[in-house]
C-alpha cells in the first residue's frame, strides 16, 4: 500500500482520494454516492463544510446519517437508512436523476479512457471477455443523467486510450458526440486520482490534468496513463490532506474497511 507523507501525517491512497473528492463538493448539493470512497467523501464534506449537503443511495435512501464504524456493505442494506429523511423505491430514487434533482454522481470503474468513458462490464472482447466484471448497476444511469466525479487509483492499465466497453458514457468520442447520442445533459466533470486532479477540455472533451498531488510530477502522471494527456496552462498545487480531514475519515472508518 503506497504511503504518502504530508503535514507529518501518513495517509493511504484511498484516504487521499476521499479528501480530494470531498473538497470538490459544495454545501447544499444533492449527491448520488456509492459506498467506499464516494460515501466517505460526501460524509467528510458534510462534516467539514457542507452541513446542508444531501446524500442519495441507489438502494432507496434520501439524506441518511452515517454511524461511525457501521458503514454499509452496499447501498442496499438497512445501514444506509440510519436517521434518513426518506426511504423510497429504487426506481424512484434513480428517477431523481432523470427528473434533474441531482448535482453530482460519484462513479468508479475498472477502466477509464481519454474521453472519460467508464468500463465496469468486460475486460477484453465483450463477446469473449478475459474477465466478466459485475456490470453497470446504476452507473450507466448516473453517468447518463448528471455530472460525474470519478475517484480511482491512477494506473496505466486503468487509464486507457479506449475502454474495451462503454458501460457508463463519459464524453463518448469527444466534441459533441455525447449530446448527439441523446445525452444533452450531464457528463464527466472531474477525475480524482492519487496522482492528480483531472478535467476535460471544453471543446474536444479530452482528459486534461488540472492539478498535481503534492510531490507528484507531470511525468509521473503521464507515465501512469495509457494515452497522451493534456495539461492545463498553469497547474494548480493541491493541498495535501489535513489532519482534521484524516481524523474525520478515521472516525468514520475505524477498521479501515474502505480506506486501507
Amino acid at each position, binding site marked *: 500500500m503506497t504511503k504518502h507523507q504530508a503535514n507529518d501525517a501518513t495517509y493511504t491512497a484511498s484516504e487521499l482520494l476521499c479528501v480530494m473528492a470531498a473538497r470538490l463538493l459544495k454545501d447544499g448539493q444533492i449527491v448520488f454516492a456509492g459506498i467506499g470512497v464516494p460515501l466517505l467523501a460526501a460524509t467528510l464534506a458534510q462534516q467539514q463544510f457542507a452541513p446542508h449537503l444531501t446524500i442519495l443511495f441507489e438502494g432507496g435512501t434520501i439524506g441518511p446519517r452515517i454511524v461511525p464504524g457501521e458503514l454499509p456493505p452496499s447501498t442496499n442494506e438497512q445501514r444506509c437508512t440510519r436517521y434518513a429523511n426518506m426511504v423510497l423505491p429504487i426506481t424512484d430514487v434513480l428517477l431523481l436523476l432523470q427528473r434533474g434533482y441531482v448535482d453530482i454522481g460519484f462513479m468508479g470503474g475498472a477502466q477509464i479512457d481519454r474521453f472519460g468513458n467508464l468500463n465496469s462490464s468486460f475486460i477484453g472482447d465483450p463477446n469473449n471477455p478475459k474477465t466478466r466484471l459485475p456490470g453497470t448497476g446504476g452507473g450507466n444511469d448516473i453517468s447518463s443523467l448528471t455530472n460525474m466525479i470519478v475517484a480511482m487509483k491512477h494506473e496505466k492499465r486503468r487509464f486507457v486510450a479506449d475502454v474495451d466497453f462503454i458501460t457508463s458514457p463519459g464524453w463518448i468520442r469527444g466534441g459533441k458526440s455525447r449530446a448527439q447520442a*441523446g445525452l444533452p445533459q450531464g457528463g464527466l466533470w472531474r477525475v480524482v486520482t492519487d496522482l492528480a486532479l483531472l478535467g476535460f477540455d471544453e471543446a474536444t472533451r479530452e482528459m486534461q490534468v488540472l492539478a498535481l498531488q503534492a510531490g507528484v510530477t507531470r511525468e509521473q502522471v503521464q507515465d501512469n496513463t495509457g494515452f497522451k494527456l493534456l495539461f492545463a496552462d498553469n497547474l494548480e498545487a493541491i493541498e495535501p490532506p489535513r489532519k482534521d480531514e484524516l481524523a474525520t475519515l478515521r472516525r468514520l472508518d475505524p477498521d479501515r474497511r474502505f480506506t486501507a
Partner: protein
Amino acid sequence: MSDNDLVTPYPQLRQETLARDRGLREKVMSLEQAAKLISDGDHVALGGCHLSRTPTAMIWALIRARKQKLTVSRSIASSETDLLLASGAANHVVTSWFSQGLIWGVSKVMRHYTEKKLAVFEEWSHMSMGLRYRAGAMGIPFMPSRTMLGSGVGEQLGEKLKTMTCPFTGEELALLPALNPDWALIHVQRCDAFGNAQLDGLQFMDLDLAMAAKRVIMTTERIVSNEQIRRTPDQTRIPFFTVEAVVEAPMGCAPHECYGVYEPFFSHLDDYAHVTTKDPIEGSKKYLDRYFYGPKSWPDYLSELGMDAVLDACRRGRSVHND
C-alpha cells in the same frame, strides 16, 4: 416464459390474470408445496436487492427441488444468483450488476459461468430494470427513458432496446420493453394468509415486481391476521390478489438481511467468498451440499448457519429500531 416474446402480448397478459382465482382466499403452504408451482424454464424475478430481503428460503426450496433452465431477473444479483447458476437451476440472468458484493471482489462463480458461456448474463442499467418492471406493472408494453443511449450496454441489447423521437418534444428517447415475469419471489416482514403484505424499510423494486409478475410467491417472517392488516391498510404494500402462495419462513433471507429483523451474516458471507474464490466449482458444490441439499428442513438449515450467528444478525438487525 410461456413463449419467447420479449413483451408478453397484452391479450395474453390479461387472459392469464383474469384466469386466476383472485378471490380473497387463504393460500398458506410449505416451501416444498410452493416450489412445485414453478416450472422449469420459467422466468423468476427475485425481490429485495443485493444483500437485502433476498427470498433465500424460496430459492433454497427451488434448488432442492432440482429446478432447471430458469431465467432469473434481479436488479442487483449476489450470492443467491451464484447458487442458482452453480446448482444448475438457472442458466440466464437478467440484471444490472452481478457479484457477491464490492467488499468481496468479483464473484468467481459469476465469472466461471458467464465467461465459459454456461449461462447468459444479460445486462441492463439499474433504472432500466426498474422501469421494465414498472411498465409491466402498469400494463403498458414499454416505458420511455433517457439512459443506456450511447453506451455499450444499450448497443449490446440490440433489438431488445428501441429508440424513438418524441412526438411532443422531438427528443430522442430510449424505449424499455415491459417485463412481466412468470413469478416474483418476495420476502416481507409480515403478511396475512391471503397475501396482503406489509414491508418495512427499503422497498427496492418489490411493489412493481409484484404487480408486473404473473404470480407472486410471498415468504414472510411471520403470518399475521387479516384483521391486523385491516387496522393499518395504508401500510399494506402488496395486494393479496397478486399472490399465489404464502409461506411462513422465519429468517427467510439468511444469510442476507431482512430490514429491522436481522442484518447480513457477514462472517458466513466471508467464508462463502473464501471457498468460492479458491475454487468456484468445488467451493460452490461443497457449499450447496452442506447448506442446501444436506439440511432436512429450513430450521435445520438455520442450525447449520449457527445459533450464535443467528442471534448476532438479529441483534444487529434490531438496531434501526433503537434510533
